[in-house]
């Protein structure tokens, strides 16, 4: 049984990797297994966690859960062509709630917090020793403020990027590009360790070639 599980895992691992060469039956088989098993996995998980865990175990204490269930049921009316349009109601409910929730969340966490965090002194004086920030710190603070400011200029929709405004927008896109480059470089490392883990499985756990 242990041998079987090991070979099965290895077979599927290689099947996925074979996609890098080209699409082939081995990959198709792995993909078909993956889709079937994982869809089943999620039906089961959602069934036990949400339907049983949240609804069935909870409705005695919280009768309002039936509203959720009713909305869910309306969803199923899609299967009846004549009154299928009723299934738009739960959708409308979800869209409304999502919009309302995210509007406030983004206002608070993305706008207010980020603006607040940018308001930092460019330099400050120590109690006795004059400026206590070195030139490096001053430049860094300036870079942050200028970068945030010009980055926002870039996102302006209602003004053409011309003249001084266009110049600022251009500086802004420079900053955004540096940001993208930096986060790309930063992620490369963690991506490699995933592959190392798989290689270790194939060459170590499976074939026992490495320690």
């Amino acid at each position, binding site marked *: 049984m242990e041998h079987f*599980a090991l070979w099965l895992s290895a077979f599927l*691992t290689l099947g996925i*990797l074979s996609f*890098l060469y080209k699409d082939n039956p081995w990959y*198709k088989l*792995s993909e*078909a*297994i993956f*889709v*079937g*098993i994982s*869809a*089943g*996995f*999620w*039906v*089961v998980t*959602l*069934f*036990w966690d949400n*339907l049983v865990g*949240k609804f069935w175990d*909870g409705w005695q204490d919280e009768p309002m859960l039936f509203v*959720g269930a009713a909305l*869910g049921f309306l969803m*199923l009316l899609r299967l009846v062509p004549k009154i299928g349009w009723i299934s738009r*109601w*739960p959708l*409308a*409910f979800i*869209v409304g*709630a999502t*919009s*309302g*929730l995210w*509007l406030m969340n983004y206002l608070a966490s993305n706008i207010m917090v*980020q603006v607040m965090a940018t308001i930092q002194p460019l330099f400050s004086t120590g109690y006795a020793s004059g400026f206590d920030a070195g030139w490096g710190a001053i430049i*860094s603070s300036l870079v942050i403020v200028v970068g*945030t400011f*010009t*980055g*926002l200029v870039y996102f302006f929709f209602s003004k053409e990027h011309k003249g001084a405004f266009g110049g600022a927008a251009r500086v*802004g*896109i*420079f*900053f955004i*590009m*540096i*940001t*993208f*480059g*930096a*986060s*790309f*470089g*930063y992620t*490369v490392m963690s*991506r490699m360790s995933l*592959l190392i883990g798989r290689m270790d*499985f194939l060459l170590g756990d499976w074939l026992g070639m490495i320690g």
Partner: protein
Amino acid sequence: MRQQIPLLITFIVGTLLIVSVFIPPFGDLETTFNIWFDIIAVFAFFLGGGNLLRVHINKLRKRKRDWGFSIVTILGFSVMLIAGLFKIGNPGDIASAVDAPGSLFYDIFNSVQYPLSATMYSLLAFFVASASYRAFRAKNREATLLLIAAFIILLGRTPFGVMLTGWIPDSTSLLQIPNLAIWIMNSPNLAGQRAIMIGIGLGVISMSLRLILGIERSYLGGDK
């Protein structure tokens, strides 16, 4: 009517959730919504799972290209369903957690789904390399900046970056690549991130308002 009712529901629910932030007695609405959403999602799953089965059964019946793989998908789906819903092989029978160690569900997850998922994820290592090769070219000023930033960060995290600029005296140690990498992460990168995040915040507000006010309705009753 068919258009008005959904728009009205969206408007009322959206407004209610915005206002609830300021009215303590409505404070639980968010939690309530999340639970309702989860329940609706399960019902929707009957449609999704049903659709998955229908597509593959159709493929099988019409002997479309690759229909053999559809059998595998249907089989996998059914096996997982039966194993999970009836909790086959679970040590504590039906009362135990569905993914208790020792159950069939748990074993299939570990020797099938986990390696598949981890390997698919690890494909990123290859794609990161091919994307770097193809896309990081100094085509123009923007691309050059992207390239340089990525290059410095990458170098700064390898021993070569340390070796390359180790000779730079400590007085200008910022120019040593590892330090430069840290500076880029903490200054220009931070600035760019903030601009993007504030922009996103405003985009979400505007988008949500359009939806709540019914200006944007292409997803529901269509634009006339």
